[in-house]
């Protein structure tokens, strides 16, 4: 019989009914649930702009993007459920604050330029984080990530295109784009988590094949990819320490404010309370739909 340790050593995949250590299962449940919650809460900053999109084209694109985020949340809840948890319990953990979601969604989307910036930077950072997860050791999570990564590429491109239109528009539109970049740049870098020196669970997750690259490695990869893109947009990255390092073949960048990240994760970001209140309200207001569907099913489809 193939043991868990052998599967991990061979870079194989662990499947739902395989024997696995309790800590491996618990770590995955926490990570996949947090990932699912992020997709669901992540609908809010952009969803707020659907009714105010500047054209029918942009509105249709934004609707499709936000619908994708809902879909990503559903793939991930389904993946978490293969580990023996109940979806209702995961949602309850989100609503009561026992489980987290990505800190990035606790920042407000103040202008239309924020929508493009979120697609470009937030989805761009998500791609850098998520591509290695397509090779994660837990089969259902890896398979969900393959689907998600295919769709994220559209998200990033539509954001970049939208922001490009603004940055090459009127001086006011350019200023709006620059303002959005100024506000989202540092929170986007925080999406990669605490520095390696302060990331206590990383080592074990790496040993288990859940994590393939360190937080700082992925953060650097994102900076290196994004700096040239900002130049194409004609926007300035708000970091005075940003400089090309010939020796490393990478961009040096300034200190990320990890104290701010800790504050937001602890629930004291600009929009934490608002995001959860909105989610709880949406859940309550949708309860009658689920009850009606159950009643219809219980009646055997009789009208």
């Amino acid at each position, binding site marked *: *019989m*193939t043991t868990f340790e052998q599967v991990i050593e061979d870079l194989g995949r662990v*499947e739902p*009914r*395989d*024997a696995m250590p309790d800590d491996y299962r618990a770590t995955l449940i926490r990570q996949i649930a947090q990932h699912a919650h992020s997709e669901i809460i992540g609908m809010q900053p952009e969803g707020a702009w659907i009714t105010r999109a500047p054209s029918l084209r942009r509105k249709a694109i934004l609707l*499709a993007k936000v*619908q*994708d985020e809902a*879909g990503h949340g*559903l*793939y991930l809840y*389904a*993946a978490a*459920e*293969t580990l023996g948890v109940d*979806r209702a319990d995961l949602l309850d953990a989100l609503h009561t604050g026992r489980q987290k979601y990505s800190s990035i969604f606790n920042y407000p989307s103040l202008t239309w330029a924020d929508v493009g910036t979120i697609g470009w930077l937030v989805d761009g950072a998500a791609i850098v984080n998520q591509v290695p997860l397509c090779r994660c050791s837990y089969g259902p999570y890896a*398979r*969900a990530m393959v*689907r998600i990564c295919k*769709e994220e590429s559209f998200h990033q491109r539509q954001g970049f295109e939208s922001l490009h239109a603004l940055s090459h528009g009127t001086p006011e539109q350019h200023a709006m784009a620059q303002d959005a970049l100024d506000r989202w740049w540092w929170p986007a870098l925080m999406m990669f988590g605490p520095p390696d020196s302060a990331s206590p669970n990383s080592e074990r997750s790496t040993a288990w094949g859940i994590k393939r690259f360190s937080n700082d490695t992925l953060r650097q990869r994102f900076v290196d990819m994004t700096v040239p893109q900002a130049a194409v947009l004609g926007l300035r990255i708000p970091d005075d320490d940003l400089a090309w390092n010939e020796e490393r073949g990478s961009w040096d960048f300034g200190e990320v404010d990890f104290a701010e990240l800790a504050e937001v994760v602890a629930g004291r970001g600009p929009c934490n309370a608002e995001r959860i209140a909105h989610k709880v309200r949406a859940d309550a207001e949708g309860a009658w739909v*689920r009850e009606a*569907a*159950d009643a*219809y*099913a219980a009646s055997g*489809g009789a009208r």
Partner: protein
Amino acid sequence: MSVLWEVFVRPRRGLAHAHVGSLHAADAETALRNARDVYTRRSEGVSLWVVPASMITASSPDEQDSFFEPAGDKVYRHPTFYEVPDAVDQM
């Protein structure tokens, strides 16, 4: 009560339905509509099956070795088991 359904998609005519994931729904018709919205937003399929997860009987990973063992020692079921003289060009 909302139950778990397994979703199978036929990517195009000529291919078999393949498992793509699962979802929750109260009844079969709703499950089918949800499956369309969750798993085929980009024309990934031309046909969908939804099956209540509770209706699937699966082999156990614990018994994997013994369960599939009967095929292990029957190498003569593969064409490569047989030697064909060089004079035979293709077989």
